[in-house]
């Protein structure tokens, strides 16, 4: 037991989780923005935009996240010299956020679309009937109700995103939790099982409130019809 506790003196576990929280936060914000745009494209009356939105979702939802993240480092940075900042480590961090965003935006799009399906067609018809064109109708009438109907599926995407933030390890973000776990196991093979449990429990602690919160919010904010 004492052996185990010394681990926390040698390795800064909370700091590693903090990196995952930051990755999650920024990827969640950007994938919500991108996912909303994609959902708008998919429900728009313009066929070419619908096609583009569907193509995006089908490509990135069906590509393994590891490949997308690794491409960020080896393809975008290594080969194409794409750099999001001059700071070497921060660049990997941002590329990882980019990869997480691109991947999860596809899921956010589909979650929002499931929310749109909870909005009766009559709402859109009434919006059009008073003279709102597509974008104002979407912004004022459809999306506010769709988001409220999509809280639970969006919560699921967020939960997946929290855990998937560990894939940033494949994108050379060495400070995040699963990378630290690997390092710890390398140096303290005698404690491999407690180390596994530490990180597993850490993620469970992060994820449980998200589940509780979204379940509560989806009930609280449900649109009364």
């Amino acid at each position: 037991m004492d052996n185990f506790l010394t681990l926390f003196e040698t390795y800064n576990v909370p700091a590693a989780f903090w990196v995952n929280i930051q990755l999650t936060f920024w990827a969640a914000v950007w994938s919500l923005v991108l996912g909303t745009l994609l959902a708008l494209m998919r429900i728009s009356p313009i066929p070419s935009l619908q096609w583009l939105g569907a193509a995006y979702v089908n490509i990135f939802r069906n590509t393994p996240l590891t490949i997308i993240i690794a491409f960020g480092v080896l393809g975008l940075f290594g080969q194409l010299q794409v750099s999001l900042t001059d700071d070497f480590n921060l660049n990997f961090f941002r590329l990882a956020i980019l990869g997480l965003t691109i991947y999860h935006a596809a899921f956010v799009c589909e979650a929002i679309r499931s929310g749109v399906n909870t909005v009766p067609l009559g709402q859109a018809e009434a919006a059009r009937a008073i003279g709102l064109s597509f974008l104002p109708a979407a912004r004022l009438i459809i999306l506010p109700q769709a988001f409220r109907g999509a809280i639970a599926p969006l919560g699921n995407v967020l939960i997946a995103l929290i855990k998937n933030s560990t894939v940033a390890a494949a994108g050379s973000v060495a400070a995040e939790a699963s990378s630290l776990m690997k390092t710890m196991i390398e140096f303290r093979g005698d404690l491999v099982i407690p180390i596994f449990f530490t990180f597993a429990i850490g993620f469970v602690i992060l994820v449980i409130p998200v589940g509780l919160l979204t379940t509560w919010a989806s009930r609280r904010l449900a649109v009364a019809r």
Partner: protein
Amino acid sequence: MTSEPQPSTSASSAHPLVSLRKVNKHYGPLHVLKDIDLEVARGEVVVVIGPSGSGKSTLCRAINRLETIDDGEIQVDGKVLPAEGKALARLRADVGMVFQSFNLFAHKSILENVTLGPIKVKGMKGGEAKELAMSLLKRVGVDNQADKLPAQLSGGQQQRVAIARALAMKPKVMLFDEPTSALDPEMINEVLDAMVALAKEGMTMIVVTHEMGFARKAADRVIFMADGQIVEQATPEEFFTNPKSERAKDFLGKILAH
């Protein structure tokens, strides 16, 4: 300056407010509107009746292009219905619509439901829109519910709010698509009363309904549709007492038997 007669004004009162010419629509193999010709004059109240599946709702919804048509032409106030985009939105703002299922914006208060169009579509100031909305809500008798959400109101109240919402756009014509069909019997009259009042004020109205009482009381003309065609049209008195076609006699026999 001499005041010359305005040719545009005289022209606008000469043409019918709503006109349909040779309008056809199919749902797959089903021919739901067959060569519909219809003209509605300014201030006229037209009631469309007919058995279900006769195309009367489709006809009503086609006039503000919630249903597209396959061929033919629909004009509102002398302008052909635009296909899409801003021009269509502008035209829809001039055509009020009341739906069978009310379709009030579920996440907005009663007041917001009515002010949304004037503010967002017409760019009216918030205070002015609120004043307009409250006067319209008062007119249909639901001003005391202004801060509630639609789900907190009865069906009859919701439908009267829907009428106020449409009127807030100061439409040239109002379309009613079976406005009382989803209501409990004791709520039908409150909605019909609001509609009769509107008709008396000279609003141009196209009303799809099964309410024969309303047709007798408020309609200038009854249009009887069956199988996607306009089978017969006449004044309410003429139509109800002396229908010409077998189809109309059969229909009236069924609904007026009790």
